[in-house]
Every structure is written in C-alpha cells, then in structure tokens.
C-alpha cells in the first residue's frame, strides 16, 4: 500500500519542466510551551524547573519528518491525509513562514499562503478589511482601489444588501470566508497555496472559486491545495501528495493517489 511513485508528477502542459518548489528532506519541529504532562500546579512547575528536567515546560512536536518533492510550473498539487498529518505545516514551511528544523525549501519567487484572515479585524468594516488585507499581502493602495469593486462583487457580500460597510463581526461565517477568499485571490501569485478554502461558502461560491483557482493556475506557476474534500481535489489537481504522520506516503497522479487514499480511509 505504501508504495512510492518514483516517476513523480504527470507531465506539465507543454515544454520543458521548470521546477518552482523544491523541498529537500524537510523536517519541522514545533515547540509548545505549557504542553507538559503531569500536574498543572505552580509547585509542580517550580519543581520541574528546579530539578532541571530536560525541556522543563516545553514539548516538541515533530510535525513533518523528512519530506522531499519537486513541484513544476503549471502544476496543481493536492495535499491529502488525515487530520494532524502535517499538511498545513508543510504548506507554511514552503511559504517560508515556519522555519525548517532540518532540510531546505527552495522556491521561485515568493510563495503565498491564502491566509489573509490573520490580518483582518472583526471590529472593522468589510471595506476597511479589504484595504488592510490587501496591504498585508503586499499590494499597493492603487492596486487595491483598482480591484476593490472586483473583490466585493466576487465575494457576493453585497448581494443581500449593503453589508460591506458593516463590521465583519456581523457577518455569518460563510460570508466572512467568502470575503477572505476574494481578497486573497485578488492578487497574482507565483506560487499559491490554499488551505481548506474551498470547503466554505455555498455551492455557487464554490464553483466560482474553483474557476478562479483555475485562472490563477494559468496566470501563475504552481498551486497547492489542502482539502479533505476528495471531489474538489479531483476537480482542481493533477498531482497529489499523501501525507501521514508527517511523512510522504505517496506522490503521483491524482486518480491513483486519491483512490489509494479512499481505499485506506474506507476501512
């Protein structure tokens, strides 16, 4: 079952294959404070500190263990695996947001994670959040003004009334997710990484965002997609990496890997 596919990715549309992302034996270790087992009292914590137990108060989580692959221009790569298998962590390492403990990630240009939500503030209006999110992604003010209407229209926030001038805390979770995706997708990316973004929103919005991802893929290099929805992986990706316990279990054409994954999870 755990066969590796040595041939790697299916063919890029045409021409010579140009690598955009190379992961070379990447290891990622999280350090978690206060995650220690044992009694949680102050005296117990002091006791550990005084006795100089190794790593007092710190626990290490080895989230990604030696993953290597090469991604090429024009590919859309899906990442699948059970919860906690290290998919999101691997994406963050590719984006250079989480430093790798060992190994290296080489990239062409700046990979961006579709994660603009972190810069947005619930107490501000949708309008201001479009500005703030765009600036946080590195767009200029002129670019944002130019694309503002496009972002609002794409999100469909104003279909039910003038919601864009209300604070984001008044949005439903679906509306907020749509606005986030719209802002993030407004920028042109060299390497784009999407983490579960397609799971949100209603059916018509999902269709629109899938179309937008195909567009982004045409304009720019490589798209990575993390999802638990095998259908959306099948619709958008032509190569799939299957991670389990932080290790690369399988790497190959979508149909092959997803079928193996489904067989494993159906048990």
């Amino acid at each position: 079952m755990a066969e590796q596919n040595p041939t790697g990715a299916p063919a890029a549309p045409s021409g010579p294959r140009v690598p955009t992302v190379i992961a070379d034996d990447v290891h990622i270790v999280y350090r978690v404070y206060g995650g220690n087992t044992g009694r949680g009292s102050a005296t117990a914590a002091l006791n550990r500190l005084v006795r100089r137990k190794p790593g007092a108060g710190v626990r290490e989580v080895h989230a990604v263990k030696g993953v290597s692959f090469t991604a090429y221009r024009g590919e859309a790569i899906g990442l699948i695996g059970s919860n906690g298998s290290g998919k999101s962590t691997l994406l963050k390492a590719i984006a250079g947001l989480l430093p790798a403990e060992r190994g290296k990630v080489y990239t062409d240009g700046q990979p961006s994670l579709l994660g603009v939500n972190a810069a947005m503030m619930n107490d501000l209006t949708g309008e201001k959040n479009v500005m703030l999110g765009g600036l946080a992604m590195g767009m200029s003010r002129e670019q944002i003004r130019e694309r503002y209407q496009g972002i609002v229209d794409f999100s469909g926030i104003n279909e039910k009334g003038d919601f864009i001038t209300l604070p984001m805390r008044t949005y439903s979770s679906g509306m907020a997710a749509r606005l986030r995706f719209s802002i993030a997708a407004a920028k042109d990316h060299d390497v784009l990484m999407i983490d579960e973004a397609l799971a949100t929103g209603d059916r018509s919005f999902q269709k629109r965002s899938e179309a937008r991802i195909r567009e982004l893929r045409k304009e720019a290099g490589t798209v990575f997609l993390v999802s638990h929805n095998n259908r959306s992986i099948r619709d958008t990706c032509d190569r799939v990496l299957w991670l389990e316990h932080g290790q690369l279990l399988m790497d190959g054409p979508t149909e092959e890997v997803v079928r193996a994954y489904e067989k494993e999870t159906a048990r």
Partner: protein
Amino acid sequence: MSTVSETTHDSAVAMSAPPSPDDGLPAAELARKYGLAVSGARPPLGEYTRQLWARRHFILAFSRAKLTAQYSKAKLGQVWQVATPLLNATVYFLIFGLLMQQSKGMGIRTYIPFLVTGIFVFTFTQSSAMAGVRAISGNLGLVRALHFPRAALPISFALQQLQQLLYSMVVLFLFLLGFGHTPALSWLLIVPVLVLQFCFNTGLALILARAGSKTPDLAQLLPFVTRTWMYASGVMYSLVDALEKAKAPGWVVDVLSANPAAVYIDLMRWSLIENHSRIHLPPHVWSLALGWALVFGIGGFVYFWKAEEQYGRG
C-alpha cells in the same frame, strides 16, 4: 500480449516523465540551475529596510485599524480616544490636586500640568514596551500566514501608541490652558521631543519583540520593570528634589536623570510649562535625548533584523 502491455506501460512513463538532464541532480544544484532561492531566508539589511519601506502603508493602516478597533463596540465610539486620557488626568487632578493638596512646593497651577505631562509621556514609552513584547508572540497567526518584514509589527504598535499620545496631547493642552498657561513658542519644541521619543520607543519595542518571541514570560515580568522605571523617572515628583531630600550621592542623581524616560519627560515639561524653575534640566539633555533615540532606534532595528528568519517558530 505481455509485450503490448509493456510497450504501453513504457510509453505512459515516457509521457509523464520525459527524459530530462535534471534527473538525479541533487536538490541544491537543481535549485541553483533554475535560480530558486531558499524560502524564508533573511534578506541583507539594506534590502530589508527597502522591503520595510515598501510596506509603509500597511504599517500605518495596521496601527490605525488597531486604534479604531479598540473603541468600535462602544456607543460613543472614537470619542473615547480623547475621553480616556481626559478622565485619567481628571482623576489625578482630584486625588493629587484637591484631595491630597500635594503640589510638592510648585503650586497647584504648575503641579497638575507637571504631573499630567509626566504621566502621558511615560505612558507612551510604557505602552510601547508592553505592545512590543507581545508584537510577535501575540500575533503568531499573522506571522505564520503572511509575508512581510516582521519589523512592521513592532513599528506599527509603536506608531499606534504615538497616535494615542497625540489624542492625549489635546487633553494636555486643555489642562495647560485651564491652569492659565498661555501658549508660547517653546511649545513647538514638543515636536522634536516627540520624534526623538518615538525613535527610542520603536527601538525599545523592536528589542522587546525579539526577546518576547523567544521568552513569552517577559510579558508577565515587564509590568514590574516599567513600574520601577516609572518611580525612578520622576513621573509624579521632581526627581532631583526627591533625591536631594533623600541625600542620594551625586552620581545616582546623574544616572537617574539621564535615563531616557526622565530625559524625555523633563524636555516635554520644560517646553510646555512656564514658570518651571523647579524643573531641572540635566546637563547635555538634548544630546542625551538624541543619543538614546539613535542608539535604541538603530540598535533595536539591527538586533531585531538579526533574528528575522526565526520569528514564527513556536
């Protein structure tokens, strides 16, 4: 039969992976061949500064957003920007001015502006330090989601405190006028003082941001440090008078009145309050103010940049 399947199999492999001279090339060489760079590497200082400058609109927008988000749920909304420092100053006036009649030999007309200036100016440094220590550790979500020079965060927080102080200055002017101080040309001197103090605060925030990202415990410790610092800087009394009364040795007086908080507080009082014969300016006070700003501003920036690629690790 077997030959047929073998040929189809071979052709499928050939189609999916055309023979390439790159096969078997080690990752590092392959990366070099196509000009790929290591993801998340720290740019050189000049390039880093340029990137930071390119993000100036984000820094400003982020600080403003934080400031407005603070009061967005209140009915009075942004009125609280001014109302909060006004109430603060009023409480000090009631307690120290009316209740305790404690004017430290200055007369109430000088003492209340003296006190309010000290508190506002010190709060500016104190809250920049507090915001700085949590700038990275409290925004890990942002750091792990988006790319930007991380120095943008502590600088943005220091900028937010500066804008907060500007609202407080409005209140301070009201108090000065209310206690019968007439506007003078020397009031303009607060502009260079504020610029220098802002540089110092930003540097301090940058240093604490790096320290706080490694050791989040600092956020617990810092309030005690700043409170000690406040008493050592003469926020509520004239530092020199108090030390002389306690018969402190001369060098203690010199060292304490050369500390950055005391320097900026003294300069601000000296610029704003007329009849301040009781306000002693230490020697070389402007050079001290400039020196602290440069040492902390530049030193803090370089110190922060040196760990740029490490922020975001848990």
